[in-house]
């Protein structure tokens, strides 16, 4: 496995070994995952019919996937009837092209964004930047990740690997309007983010979002959030573009009664998240005048073709499986090398991207098969079984790996300079394990360039200043 290691994105065993040695990261993760686990257990325990809701959620998703063609056509018709426009994107490049084209047609050079895993998966921000369009993340955690030129490490709390002192430093460095005497308490930091984004929201003309659910019957899209940045993006701009994976469709309006109970309780451990927005096409005089829905495949149909693995498409991205996973707790989200970390990432990423990079080939092993993920999953995805099945496939793919592995992984990393820059920054955390020179196909690239030095992580400064805070 280690023969395929390359800068910043080592295979899971190397990346996780580095993260496990990082005590601050481990402490942050432990504290965060244990807190949220307790909250989830309490609000799930309140519902006597949790098991029945879970069974219904699983079955609704299975039934949808079985008839996905029909539901997507029904959705398309309903959205169109309500004044929206539906686009179909077979892969990331096509989705990016469609969105860039739509933004440019408005004449705008910037967009505001609501946290969306689909747009991270396709690298939309980088693609828009290449077309001269700036994409501003507005979710607090995404903002921290974007300003820190970093990668998300948790589905729900993408900046879970950053502590308050690091966030303060990032804000002071990257936000011109942050007060110079900014304190490092969460309230002050949230206030700084509010001020920073306020004018941007009030003047934004184009927004890009994802969606948690799309209702085939009515053409309704649903976004759950906490901060209100979602409402800002979905309501104030003139044009709204939503990029959504094809597996997010549910058949009927009534089906939401299951998912609007399962998701908030599993996700943030709340009875309900602060804000849920639903919209159907466009509403004259209220919200965007133009609505575009980009339906994204990008590997999902190949996941669907796998009898065992297709259940991963039931995932509603609640992140409960991350919070109970002993491997995630120790390794952190970055070690999974994908926007989908944790147990779900370990089964989804290799299926979406194929098993032939060393990283993706190693992901099915990023588990102790303890089964905790399956127990908490609100749509009963049997993650351990899919892992075992993928391990068998990983072994079979092994024969071809030597030829394809390096190329595929390197292509993903080098396809955009931004990604490489981030990989190098990430390497700060993993730097003892990172070669100074890229192996394999990357060698030619590094031989002609000086790799920037890998900086010391800034949390160490905070560690010194606050005498280490509370230690694990």
């Amino acid at each position, binding site marked *: 496995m280690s023969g395929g290691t390359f800068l910043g994105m080592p295979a899971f065993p190397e990346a996780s070994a580095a993260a496990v040695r990082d005590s601050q990261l481990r402490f942050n993760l432990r504290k965060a995952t244990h807190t949220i686990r307790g909250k989830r257990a309490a609000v799930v325990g309140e519902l006597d019919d949790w098991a029945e809701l879970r069974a219904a959620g699983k079955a609704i998703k*299975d039934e949808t996937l079985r008839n996905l063609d029909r539901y*997507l056509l029904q959705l398309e018709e309903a959205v169109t009837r309500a004044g929206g426009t539906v686009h*179909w994107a077979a892969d990331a490049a096509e989705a990016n092209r469609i969105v860039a084209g739509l933004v440019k047609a408005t004449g705008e050079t910037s967009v505001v964004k609501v946290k969306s895993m689909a747009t991270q998966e396709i690298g939309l921000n980088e693609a828009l930047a290449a077309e001269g369009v700036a994409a501003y993340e507005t979710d607090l955690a995404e903002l921290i990740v974007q300003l820190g030129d970093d990668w998300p490490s948790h589905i729900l709390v993408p900046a879970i690997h950053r502590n308050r002192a690091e966030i303060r430093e990032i804000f002071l460095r990257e936000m011109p309007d942050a007060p110079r005497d900014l304190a490092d308490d*969460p309230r002050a930091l949230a206030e700084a983010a509010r001020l920073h984004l306020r004018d941007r929201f009030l003047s934004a003309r184009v927004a890009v979002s994802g969606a948690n659910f799309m209702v085939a019957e009515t053409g309704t899209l649903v976004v759950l959030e906490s901060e209100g940045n979602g409402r800002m993006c979905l309501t104030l701009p003139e044009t709204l573009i939503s990029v959504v994976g094809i597996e997010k469709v549910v058949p009927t309006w009534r089906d939401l009664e299951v998912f609007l*109970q399962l998701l908030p309780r599993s996700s943030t451990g709340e009875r309900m998240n602060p804000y849920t927005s639903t919209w159907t096409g466009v509403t004259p005089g209220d919200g965007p005048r133009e609505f575009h829905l980009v339906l994204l495949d990008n590997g999902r149909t190949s996941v*669907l073709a796998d009898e065992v693995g297709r259940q991963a498409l039931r995932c509603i991205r609640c992140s409960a499986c991350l919070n109970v996973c002993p491997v995630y707790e120790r390794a952190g989200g970055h070690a999974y090398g994908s926007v989908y970390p944790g147990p779900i990432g370990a089964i989804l990423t290799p299926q979406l991207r194929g098993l032939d990079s060393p990283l993706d080939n190693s992901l099915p092993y990023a588990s102790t098969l303890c089964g905790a993920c399956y127990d908490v999953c609100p749509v009963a995805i049997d993650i351990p079984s899919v892992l075992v099945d993928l391990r068998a496939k990983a072994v079979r793919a092994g024969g071809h790996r030597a030829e394809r592995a390096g190329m595929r992984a390197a292509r993903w990393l080098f396809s955009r300079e931004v990604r490489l820059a981030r990989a190098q920054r990430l390497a700060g955390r993993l730097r003892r394990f990172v070669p100074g020179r890229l192996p394999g196909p990357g060698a030619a690239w590094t031989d002609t360039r000086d790799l920037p030095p890998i900086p010391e992580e800034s949390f160490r400064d905070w560690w010194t200043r606050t005498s280490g805070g509370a230690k694990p």
Partner: protein
Amino acid sequence: MSSRDLILSRIRAAVAGAPETEIPRAYARGGASGADLADLFAERVRDYRAAVRAVPADGVADAVAAALAARGARRLAVPAGLPEEWLAGTEAERVADEPPLTPAALDGLDGVITGCAVAIAATGTIVLDAGPGQGRRALTLVPDYHLCVVTAGQIVDGVPAALERLDPLAPLTWISGPSATSDIELNRVEGVHGPRTLEVVIAL
């Protein structure tokens, strides 16, 4: 082949021969509504650290006036169709959304007062559907203070009953407490981009 046809044909090939699934709906669907649920609703709203005043139906004007006075709110967005009597006790200036207020104008107001379409006791949620007395979505989003009047008949027990009462074609906003974030070390901070203060008056 268009991408649409390509995706659809990939799907059809992928699921060919896969079994159909029956959907078991053995979960509780409830369906109760009314004043009996007001205590639970109030308790659940308070859990989100929103202020709640439960008053008899003829006490709404006083409760609204008291809330606005305590807040120091002098200029309020008032959506079309809001019952006039709710504002009978306050001197606050009423700003109508006609012609539509710009985001900057909304930002300059002290708050907004609305009714709602449905309220959910189990989750402490109010749902706005842009109907009479609620206004378009921006109205309850940009001002920093939202005062919402819920009448007893609007309270339902759970999520299924709420969805049954709501029109999917209307733009809906489900509100459970003030805006919040837990993005920094999972510490909950109330008040980010949405209204930082939510206050609810329940008319029994």
